[in-house]
């Protein structure tokens, strides 16, 4: 039981993204960069965006934190590239519903791609903030927030 839950949290995809995070770099010529941190555990990332009108042309992130937060940031970066702000925000909403265990999610996991790997997080309430840190930070960047984003 416990082992199953662990495996559902630390899925291969998550472990792999943690080991080899995508788009893990500072972006010198970004249009927006926003810092996000979780003061409880010290997870700390900066999300960089290059925008063209409403479209996210490029996205990268840098920072440190636990496997869940890092893998989530990595997957996020692969998912939102080339999407419009509205599409990115809609993905965030679905991701948030997924990790907080909102009912009716499993039916529509198919089109979520790698994001679906984070479904197991909902069994670990203490880790929801880890999983959503990068997304909150992205949200701040899309809204062109000047101040750092915190999960508290």
């Amino acid at each position, binding site marked *: 039981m416990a*082992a199953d839950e662990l495996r559902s949290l630390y899925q291969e995809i998550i472990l792999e993204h943690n080991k080899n995070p995508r788009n893990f770099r500072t972006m010198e010529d970004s249009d927006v960069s926003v810092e996000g941190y979780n003061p409880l*555990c010290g997870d700390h990332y900066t999300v960089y965006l290059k925008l063209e009108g409403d479209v996210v042309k490029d996205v990268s992130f840098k920072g*440190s934190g636990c496997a869940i937060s890092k893998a989530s940031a990595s997957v996020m970066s692969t998912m939102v590239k080339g999407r419009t702000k509205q599409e990115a925000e809609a993905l965030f909403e679905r991701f948030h519903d997924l990790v907080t265990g909102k009912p009716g999610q499993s039916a529509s996991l198919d089109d979520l791609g790698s994001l679906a790997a984070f479904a197991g997080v909902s069994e670990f309430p203490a880790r929801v903030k880890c999983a959503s840190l990068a997304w909150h930070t992205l949200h701040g960047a899309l809204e062109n927030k000047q101040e750092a984003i915190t999960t508290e």
Partner: protein
Amino acid sequence: MIAQSPFAQTPSKTIPLDVERLRRDFPILQTSVRGKPLVYLDNAATTQKPRVVIDALRRYYEAQNANIHRGVHYLSELGTKLYEDARLKAQDFIHAADWREIIFVRGTTEGINLVAATYGRSKLNEGDEVLISGMEHHSNIVPWQMVCGERKATLKVVPLNDNGELVLEEYDRMLSSRTKMVALAHVSNALGTVNPLKRMIAMAHAKGIPVLVDGAQALPHMKVDVQDLDCDFYAFSAHKMYGPTGIGVLYGKSALLQDMPPYQGGGDMIKSVTFEKTLFNDLPYKFEAGTPNIADGIAFGATLDYVQALDWTAVMHYERDLLDYATEQLSGIKSLRLIGTAREKAGVISFVLGTIHPHDIGTILDQEGIAVRTGHHCAQPVMIRYDVPATVRASFAFYNTKSEVDALVRGIGKVLEVFA
């Protein structure tokens, strides 16, 4: 440098601690979490409570509840006696000279804030200094920062060496004519270091500087004698020494306490009130405004009975052995790095494991029923000093066992498997 060892007096022939019997005093230790027997290694955050303490709380609310002090009826007199008895027991436990030197507060944090806000605010002036150490808990940093800011005084910090020990030569150098207060942890909650307090207090006193000790992590592991230490203030929390939350003690030398302005105003802390003038009460009530935490105070009395009856020589011997065993077992794990390797330690092992984040380690251990703490342990400057974002902290009490240490080691094995 001769480190003063709290264990130095341990004779070679002690009666071993009957841990299995003691464990039965703590109902929660018989429980399971996530289908596994609870392995509770988060004692530095708060300790578990023996049944006698839980019973005392229940008894108070079921059969003794009344407000105390100034009541003329039976229950009020009974409550007053039980509450005041707890004060006498606390006096006895830390060997204070006078019961009036025991001020009941919410805990260590409030005790330190009380001294900073009264003694600090009335004594500090522009250019003065308060000296703390690099291993302090936020509660022995922020109150001083606040009062220093207000009084234009400066906060100075004694550095740590790579093992997590205070550099005494630096400490000596930093004690100056501008230093108006020294505030030091007895035992570090993040590193486990036991500071050579007696010597450090003597060094401060040689220059006429008073010393406050944050004893939150010392009382659960050792007998403390405030007169022998000769500290001026000593703050601690009941919940970290097997007692209830919401109550603790600020010990202060009466000459200093007498001289200090009150902390909060209200009932109980006054002798007489008119709109023109208020006459403050005597010690310790001058510092205890309002209805106190009666229930937890009384249950703290039961706690003190319990800990007073322990064979402390055996407890310290046992805990030292357990900590040595845990240190040895964990050191055998290749990618594990201990944070805090002072010669004198008590109760705490902090570590990091390769590049695996402590938060992930904590989650996996939790699935095995093992409770540890991960994070900065309210000591962010310590994390910065050792260049880690966070640590995993296993912290022990006398009811922990070597087989629980083995469970921890197995749990770390699982972590390494997941992140292989």
